[in-house]
């Protein structure tokens, strides 16, 4: 798998929301609820992000393309990307806590 670097917060949240199939509006609601309204995603940005993630093969649309309320779900590659990101975040927080912990 390609080295993907750090994910944006929005990409990670979209990937997490799609462990269950969801359509655009449900993804938006999921993110808003999980962040207590801190991260509010506009429909234009969500549309671009879903298309980008689908182009990368990290998520896939379900059913026929012209169905109303298109649903997406995460792919196997997408799940691997999420696991990589969790590892990266763990390392990052462990390192940050180590440095900050030494100073207090």
């Amino acid at each position, binding site marked *: 798998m390609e080295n993907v670097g750090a994910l*944006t917060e*929005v990409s990670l949240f979209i990937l997490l929301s799609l462990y269950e199939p969801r359509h655009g509006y449900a993804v*938006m609601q999921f993110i808003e609820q999980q962040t207590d309204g801190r991260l*509010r995603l506009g*429909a*234009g*940005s969500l549309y671009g*992000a879903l298309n980008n993630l689908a182009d990368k093969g990290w998520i896939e649309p379900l059913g026929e393309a012209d169905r109303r309320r298109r649903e997406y779900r995460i792919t196997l590659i997408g799940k691997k990307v999420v696991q990589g990101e969790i590892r990266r975040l763990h390392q990052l927080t462990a390192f940050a806590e180590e440095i900050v912990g030494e100073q207090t």
Partner: protein
Amino acid sequence: MSKRVYRYFYGFLDKQQSFLNRMAREGWRLMRTGRISYVFEPCEPDEYNYCVDFVAHKSPRASQDYQRFLDEMGYRVMTKPLNINYSIGKVRVRPWGEGWGKLATSPGAFNKELLIVEKKNDGKPFELHTTMEDRMAYYRTQRSAWGTLALALAAFAVYSLVRYGWAWQAVALSVLTLFHLWPAWQSHHILKQLKAQSEVME
């Protein structure tokens, strides 16, 4: 009782958006638009919110797909022409379009450059472009669209100045150039701020 209001905003999308939101605050819901006219019907004050989006750089198919997505989100979407000319069988080159540029034809993408998106007010702010990446892409498109037009007009203005001196053609073309340069500069300015912000934040 409906109300017809005549306005023309051209490249000043933010002004158009403020106008529609002001009308909605006063209890007027947008029903349809023409080239320079807006038809409203009474609604509760503040019942709806509006966003104006720019889709001239997209192919008709990509634009329709985006409109369908917005429709699925529960929004009402209307297309609006940017220009005021009537056209059938027209073909325009848009070098600033997606990929290698786009051809706008009529019927097709021509005269459907803008989307007016309506959302029932739920007390939360209504924005279409919120992520850094997407906002930067949005203003970059705006900058190249208006910048390209301004450049073309400036070239015509210079040509006309050299050929005829300061006759009315050169004056009119210079004014038109400035008229296009303004939204290009505005987008450039916002883009610069976003870029600086993106270096430390998402």
